[in-house]
């Protein structure tokens, strides 16, 4: 083997090694970026389903009002809770534990106001038999299920991402590229399951 040939082999090996290293880092960087985007995407789904619930409320309130006009306090409470829940806007790029907590507590306020409305509805058998009301009830129930599903999807994507960036050797350079551990959308005690919407 001549000196010239040796030189080419060494250069070839170095080029290949660099290429492999580069493509390895590139692949895991791209995977991290994709997973990060996935979290953002799943978060917007979470917001969508909460928005969907908020959108149902005016219709629900007006239907209940038709049968239970004098339950004013309950109506005021629910309208206020809805306004509060829809006013909490958080930046999907900065989903830290604190902003998630704010979002959660506003939505919980609306959940409990809805719960009180349901107790009121119990006293009006005619309302419970009304087809329009039954449709709304089914929509609300479906929406609570959607909330459970999208929250779970969000938390699962956060978990997959957190596990991914902590794996060796990605843990050495994930932070260099700005990929930090993400926070979960924690639920309060007992609210992992969709609340029963029974009238």
């Amino acid at each position: 083997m001549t000196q010239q040939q040796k030189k080419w082999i060494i250069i070839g090996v170095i080029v290949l090694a660099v290429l492999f290293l580069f493509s390895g880092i590139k692949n895991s960087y791209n995977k991290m970026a994709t997973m990060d985007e996935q979290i953002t995407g799943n978060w917007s789904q979470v917001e969508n389903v909460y928005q969907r619930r908020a959108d149902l409320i005016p219709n629900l309130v007006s239907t209940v009002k038709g049968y239970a006009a004098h339950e004013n306090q309950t109506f005021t409470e629910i309208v206020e809770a809805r306004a509060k829940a829809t006013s909490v806007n958080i930046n999907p790029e900065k989903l830290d534990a604190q902003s998630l907590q704010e979002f959660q507590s506003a939505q919980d306020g609306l959940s409990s106001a809805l719960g009180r409305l349901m107790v009121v509805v119990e006293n009006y058998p005619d309302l419970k038999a009304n087809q329009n009301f039954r449709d709304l009830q089914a929509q609300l129930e479906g929406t609570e299920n959607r909330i459970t599903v999208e929250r779970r999807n969000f938390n699962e994507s956060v978990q997959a991402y957190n596990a991914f960036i902590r794996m060796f050797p990605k843990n050495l350079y994930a932070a260099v590229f700005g990929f930090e551990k993400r926070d979960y959308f924690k639920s309060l005690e007992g609210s992992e399951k969709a609340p029963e919407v029974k009238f």
Partner: protein
Amino acid sequence: MKKLLLLLIIALFSSTLVSAQTDIFSKPAKEQLVVDQAGVFTEQEIAQLKEKLHQFSKETSTQILIYTTPDLQGYDVGDFAQRLGQSWGIGSKGFDNGIVIVFKPKNSEPGRITIQTGYGIEPLIPDAIANQIIENEMIPEFKNGNIYNGFNKAIDVCISLTKGEFTAANYESQIKKSENIGGAVFILIIFLITVFSLIGKSRAGRHYNAGTKSNLPLWAALFMLGSGSHRGSGFGDFSSGSGSFGGFGGGSFGGGGASGSW
């Protein structure tokens, strides 16, 4: 020694059995659209339902899964059906046109029924409609003990509501668009390596007449590596065989639909 080996095999086997039992939502070996765990249908009824659902899946790519179970394992019926549909992948990927109907017969506890709609079905069968199907078509029949009739009526309504929206033809044209181009990049890299090595060889050849092949095995091996990495996607085949079922398509579920009890 033999006994020990036998014991070991039994231990291994039973451990896999246990792990298979714990995950009720993992995909079954045989993919079909009627699963009667609770044993509420006759053989003939199962055959009729299968015929109808498999045919509908073949024509439209929309998949309706009927699943009966004596025990919901502590899940709410809607939650159970959503997890089932999501992990089995009912409906086709991209269209998410799957419907999952889960039934738990009435025993000491009330009977439970749910219709869960995939993301793509939600606009066609809104929650309120799903609820009306349950209340008007299914529960009255269930109360009279006519489980099959309730299901048959309900799937007829579902079929008529979703018919025409999805067709197997426009489903196929959709998956063709989304084929990956990742393989092309790999081929380009190999091409470049080949070119470089050839340049190296010709330069070496200029000074030394003996043909050097020392670079060849490297890129040849790489090429073989690359050719194995390009594979087709694993979607269910909707066009093959009359009456046969091509498998679940990978659809997603977001919790839409309605549930009822009696």
